[in-house]
Structures are given as C-alpha cells and as structure tokens.
C-alpha cells in the first residue's frame, strides 16, 4: 500500500502535456515578442497623427485610422438596429420555423470565409448598387459579417434574462414592449455590449473583405463615398507590396493589437459584470 515508483506511461503523459503547453506558450511569446521588438519604435503620437510618406515606409497612419473608424462607424450603423431587432424578434416573439430558419442561416454565415464576403460585397455594393470602392461598401460588407456574431450573443444575453422577470412583468400587467424597455434590455445590456465589442474586434481584424470593397487608397477620406484603407489592409500592403515597409507594418500591427486587447478587455469586464449581477443574495 506504499508509494510505488511512477509508472512509465504516467510520466510520459505528464511530460508530453507540459511540453505541449510550453511549446504553445513559447510560440505565443515569440510572436508577441517579435511584434513588440520590431514595432515599438513606431509607437509614438507622431505615428498616429501623421500621414503616410514614402508609400508608408515613413510617416504615420492618421488617414488610415480615420478610414478605419469611418468604416467601423458605417458597419455599426447598419449592424446595431438590424442586429438588436432580429435578436429581440428571435428571443421574444417566435420559436417557430422562421426563427429557426434565421438562426440556421446565421450559423452558416458565421462560417463563411471572409474572401467570399469580399466577393459578395464587391458584387452587391460596389457594382450592383454602384457605390464603387468606398467606405460605404466596406462598412456595409463588414456589417454583413458582424451580424451573425452580434445577433447570437445578443439573443443569448436576452434569453439569459430569465423567464422569472418576463413572467413577473406579465403578471404585473406590463406589455411586452414595456417589459423589454424597462427590464429585459437594460438587464441584458452588459452582455449585449460585450457581444458588440466582440463583433467590433472581428471587424477590425478583417482584411480580405475590405480589399475588394473599401479599397486601397491611403489618403485622408473626405466623404463616405471615398475609398479608404483600413488598418489591416495597410499592414497587408506594407508587408507584401512595399519593400522596406516592415517597420511601419509592425508598428501598425502593434497599434491594431493593442486596440483589440483593450476592446476585448472591456468585453470580458462587461460579461463578468453581467454574470455577477444575476446572482441574487438570499
């Protein structure tokens, strides 16, 4: 009944598992380390506020940041109302065939490669609707890509706001609309915002869809019908088409990653707050 020397297979598994994790963490450290190493020199205010010079090898990324923000704004303008309405519809009004159909089609859309969305956006917005390469086209295409994620997180946020409150509100003679406005949506709002942050994160990381819809132009956009270059596209261009553009590419990548980390931090914080709010003391 006394301790025996560990069996060979046990030791092997332990070793394997530790090695695997160390490898993964090591790779991550390598990647992030490289990013910081090569990019931090570009992290200064001038980089964020200047226009690109010498095809982007020098100067800054100001017009690109503006374009990115505008594209995001257009995308949000379309996603928020459509997404909220659909999520409300799915969670409140139906459990039937139409709702399931919507859910299934959104699931499929969520897995569609971004390049296919690029094709779609190009065909629909740039050509069919005649918007050409513009911030409008890019933003609307991004909205199509953000909708599945936003709708599913919002719907699960609303569904998590349990039947207790729903039935309680009905028992008090409150209409559906009143219950939604006064109780359910506010209660679900941290989860909804977290979902929004996740969708924004996904949108910012998009490249392939934007190349064919909002284009490549790296000048400061003067209107939403101008073509504009998003940050991710800028990174692509600098690394593939501009020799010696690596330093700026790394700098831009670092800016992008930091922004994404901040956004995901907000999302996580909000989700935790949402979850803790649901715990009632008794």
């Amino acid at each position: 009944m006394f301790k025996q020397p560990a069996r060979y297979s046990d030791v092997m598994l332990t070793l394997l598992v530790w090695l695997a994790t160390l490898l993964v963490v090591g790779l991550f450290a390598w990647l992030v380390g490289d990013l910081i190493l090569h990019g931090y020199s570009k992290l200064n205010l001038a980089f964020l506020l200047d226009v690109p010079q010498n095809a982007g090898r020098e100067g800054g990324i100001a017009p690109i940041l503006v374009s990115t923000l505008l594209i995001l704004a257009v995308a949000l303008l379309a996603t928020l109302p459509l997404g909220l309405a659909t999520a409300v519809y799915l969670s409140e009004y139906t459990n039937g065939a139409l709702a399931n159909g919507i859910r299934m089609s959104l699931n499929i859309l969520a897995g569609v490669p971004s390049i296919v969305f690029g094709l779609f956006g190009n065909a629909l917005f740039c050509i069919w609707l005649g918007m050409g390469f513009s911030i409008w086209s890019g933003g609307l295409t991004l909205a199509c890509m953000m909708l599945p994620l936003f709708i599913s997180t919002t719907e699960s946020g609303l569904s998590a706001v349990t039947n207790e409150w729903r039935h309680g509100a009905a028992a008090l003679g409150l209409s559906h609309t009143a219950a939604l406005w006064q109780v359910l949506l506010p209660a679900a709002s941290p989860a909804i915002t977290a979902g929004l942050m996740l969708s924004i994160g996904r949108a910012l990381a998009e490249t392939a869809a934007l190349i064919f819809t909002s284009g490549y132009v790296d000048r400061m956009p003067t209107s939403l019908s101008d073509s504009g270059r998003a940050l991710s596209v800028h990174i692509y261009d600098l690394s593939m088409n501009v020799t010696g553009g690596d330093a700026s590419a790394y700098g831009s990548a670092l800016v992008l990653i930091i922004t994404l980390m901040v956004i995901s931090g907000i999302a996580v914080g909000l989700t935790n707050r949402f979850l803790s709010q649901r715990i009632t003391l008794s």
Partner: protein
Amino acid sequence: MIWSRHNTSSPLRADATLARVTGSLAMAVAVLLGLVILLLIRESWGMLVDGGWVRFFDSEGWYPQRGQFDLLPMLWATLAASLGALLIALPLGMMSAVFSRFYAPGWMVSSLRRVMMLLAGIPSVVYGLWGLTVLVPLIAQWEPPGASLLAAILILALMVLPTVALTSEAALAAVSPASLQGAAALGLSRKGIVLGVALPEARAGIMTGALLAALRALGETMAVLMVAGNVVQTPGSVFDSVRVLTANIALEMPYAIGDHRAALFATGLMLMLIVTLLSWLAGRREELAHV
C-alpha cells in the same frame, strides 16, 4: 371591475408595432444568406452553365487568359494546408487543454486561458506578417524558397490552435465531476482518468472544436497568401510554393474580367458549399450529442 370595451390601449398597440418592426428587420437579415448565394451563382453563371464547370477539372493548368481553369492543384494545396495544420493543431491544442484542466497549478489556469483568447483574437494579417518576416526566412535557410506549403501549414496551425484549445478546454470542463470522482475512487491514476474517462466523455465537444478549426483553416486567406508563395502547382513536397483557393481569389480579383471573374466567383461558391456542409455536420453532431 375589469370589463372594458375593445381597448385600443396603447400598450397593446405598442406591442403590435414592435412585433411588426422587429419582424420586418429580422426578415431582412433572414434573406442575407439567400442573397449571398444568389449573387455568387449569378456572377459565376458563365462558368457553370453548359458544362462549363468541367473546365475546372480537365484544363491544362490555371491560365485564365487562355481559358484554362484547372482548379485541382489549388484544391490539393488547400486540402494539404488545412489537413497539415489540423494534424499539428489538434494534438497540441488538446494536450494544452488537458494540461490546463488536469495538470496545471491553479494560478496558471486563468492566465493560460487568457493567453489562448488573446491568440484567438490576433488578426490574420498579423500572423501573416510574422510568418513572412520570421518563419519564411527560417524555412528558406533550411530549404529555399521558404515561402511554401510548410509555412502555410505552420501558420495555419498556429491560427487554429486557440480554437482547438479553448473548445477542448470547455468540453473537458463539462465532464461531470461524478465521472471523475468515480474514476478516482476506483484508484485510477491521473493518466488513467484523463485517457480513460475525461477525453472519451468530452469527445463530442472536442470534435465540434475540430470541425470549427477545419472551417477556419479552409477559409483563411490573408495569412496563407502572405507565406505560401502563390505558385499554382500541385505540391510535391512541403517545401514547394503553393497557392490555395482563397488566396487565388484575393490575388486575381482586382483584374479579372469575364470568364476569369466568373471562375473566381465559382471558386467562392464552392468554398461556401464546403463550409455549409461542415457547419451542417457540426450542427448535426450537436444534435446527436444531446439525444
């Protein structure tokens, strides 16, 4: 006491309006998928009708200017890259999930998860950038040209690893404590519990994660475009430069016209069908798992 004539009271009217507004917006979203498929078919029509699609398989290579649209080399490249990536990412991801769940000291678990989530959030261009500037030269030292199938496999593996790790971790966490305690009570060692009880019970969730990873690998464009070399050829060795279907679309769209453009849209349509099939499979597994 509670009698009232047919009340056009505003609460009920507000409800009806809300239902109508949300309903119509939801319909708009519902048609989105249909719209995508419709547009893809419309734009690729030239290549699909009259047996045009046969050209995808029996042409002499990919020479669009000459009307040759052999997709096979790129198809093989796509499959090879995705499969290779999965072969690396699945075991690594699963093992780090097992580590996180059964071997890691407490303080490590949340940091590990955060690392994975950060990795999952890194945009593909950034992976591509790193691959291009670090990985490709490294491979080139071993065997030129460096921009190769191997680079694509490695980068893809890195990209889908977080997905596999996170979903495997969630699946392992869902294994009932009762099973684990039962196994421990039978005197099984940690390895025995992991291999004999936890992994089998978490199998469904892990498989779903694998399907999601496959989806991501197949659909990835930018990172692979940046590191794979983009030569249209059936890969003979991992060091050959290859072009995958997604990268092909990205590279040639800017100047494709007529049949060429239709061919690219057709490739997009094909990718969509593969993705739909995989999604449906993943959905079916979920259903079967809950039966």
